[in-house]
């Protein structure tokens, strides 16, 4: 368990907005369904994750994921977004305030988003990790579930 205080940046970026209104339906795993090509799970997850981003994250992290100076940290190629999934998932679950990214401080308050389903968190993180110039491995609902099970909100 690395304690990177300030580090929780990126995650924070994920969701300032609200909690999804009411969808609590879990698409089970991020694979399944839907159109998408043969690209399998990740592609569909990114598509779903974009919707979650629009509803939960965009207000603070902005359309381009670059955040707001001094307030809401960027999600663009930062170690928070591209790095350790455990840290990233916990930022979404627990929220955060105060982080330093690339030498710049961000003070915006990110509310906890533990009311998102495991699948929603997996989708939105997979989307963010593969958008805005980012490229990183997908996050799966099973991973979120395991992290949530051990998560103790501060």
């Amino acid at each position, binding site marked *: 368990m690395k304690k990177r205080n300030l580090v929780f940046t990126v995650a924070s970026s994920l969701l*300032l*907005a*609200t*909690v999804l*209104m009411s969808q609590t339906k879990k698409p089970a795993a991020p694979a399944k369904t839907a159109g998408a*090509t*043969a*690209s399998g799970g*990740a*592609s569909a997850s*990114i*598509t779903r994750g*974009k919707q979650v981003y*629009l509803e939960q994250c*965009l*207000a*603070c992290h*902005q*359309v*381009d*994921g*670059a*955040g*707001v*100076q*001094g*307030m*809401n940290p*960027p999600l*663009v190629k930062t170690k928070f977004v591209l790095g350790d999934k455990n840290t990233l998932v916990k930022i979404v679950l627990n*929220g955060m*305030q*105060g982080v330093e990214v*690339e*030498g*710049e*401080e961000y*003070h*915006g*308050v*990110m*509310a*906890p988003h533990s009311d998102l389903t495991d699948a929603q968190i997996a989708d939105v993180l997979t*989307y963010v990790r*593969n*958008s*805005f*110039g*980012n*490229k990183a491995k*997908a996050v799966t609902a099973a991973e979120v579930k395991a992290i949530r099970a051990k998560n103790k909100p501060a």
Partner: protein
Amino acid sequence: MNVIARKSLYLAAGLCFAGLVASAGDGGGKKGKEKPAKVSDANTQLKLPSGFSAVTLVDSIGRARHIAVAPNGVVFIRLNRSKGATKGVYRLEDTNGDGKADKITGFGSFFGTGVAIGNGYLYASSDEEVYRFKLDKDYNVVNPDNPEKVVTGLLNRHEHEAKAITLDGKGNLYVNIGAYSNACQLKDRTKGSPGDMPCKILDSAGGIWLFKADKLNQTYGDGVRYATGLRNVVGLDWNKQTNSLFVMQHGRDQLHDLFPDMWDTKQSAELPAECMYELHQGSNCGWPYIFYDQNQHKKILAPEYGGDGKKTGGENAQDPVVAFPGHLAPNGLLFYTGNQFPEKYKNGAFIAFHGSWNRAPEPQAGYFIVFQPFKDGKPSGQWEVFADNFSGGPEKTASGRVMYRPCGLAQAPDGSIYVTDDSKGAIWKISYK
């Protein structure tokens, strides 16, 4: 993996304004759009009314927040922390009169927003303290390494932490202590969390505090809560005509995010108003229980306190004297007392709107200086945009990825006005004719 990459590119392209995401205010990230190559010379950046022109005193001094000008024309600016910055206050002097600062000295190892000159001192605030530096007759700082602490121990919880200050010329120092909250919910900015009743934040923040300008080491117990119910004030100025304090409040965020059933994204981008208030001792402007709706011209009960977007509230709260569109972030206020500008500007208010972020997904707005005419101490007539194009163009304004962000305002002895930018650190002097 390739497929994923391609897909994500797709999505990113669809969602983003620009492929290269420029960090806020970096102004780079030009895409091959139809935009003409921007002239990066800040000198030619601003669009002004006919007869006005602007030149930069400096182009990139750092995150310049508020500014104060001495009677001999020496300029002091206050800097926020940024990567690599070591000094928080700068003294700028143009000794040869060519419009450029040629004598620049930095001092003060603390960062922040507020700065003011009075009583032979330079006052400068951090996010917890107000310091002062003794000035000599030429407005040199006598002892730059040893400021005195005038006020200490003010709350800084990293939300609305800037301690903007002003003096009234009668020995009083006014300090904004912003609320460390959006709407005084039990859990800040968290959907479904109710408003704290009564809002305990107001005991130590969410208002303007009054201190003595010449007494050292004051803290809460030595000060007076001069006005309350103000979420956050950055732009404030003492109006010498009315002999009273005027402030610009930053209105609350996230009506749509927190209450999507009551406000859609378009309404939420415009609401609530960014309000100008005239304050007197004991003033209450109503935050967090109400916000001002500039379309209904009413104080609306906040949804965290049972409001539905229509119910009014705040019977004891005063009304704003001017209500501007939402989220524009008024960071600088200046009452113009000079004689250089045309007559209509006399005693009117300039407001520097830093620019919005909480309008997404709707287009962002602001990044300009507005002029509000006054007559006999009251707003008179419609406000207008005075200085524009800090952003670098309409698309940059809409995306929020702008070149400059206006923040502080001050009047020069010759009747010109100065504007600071806290993105790169340009400082413009705007003159008439």
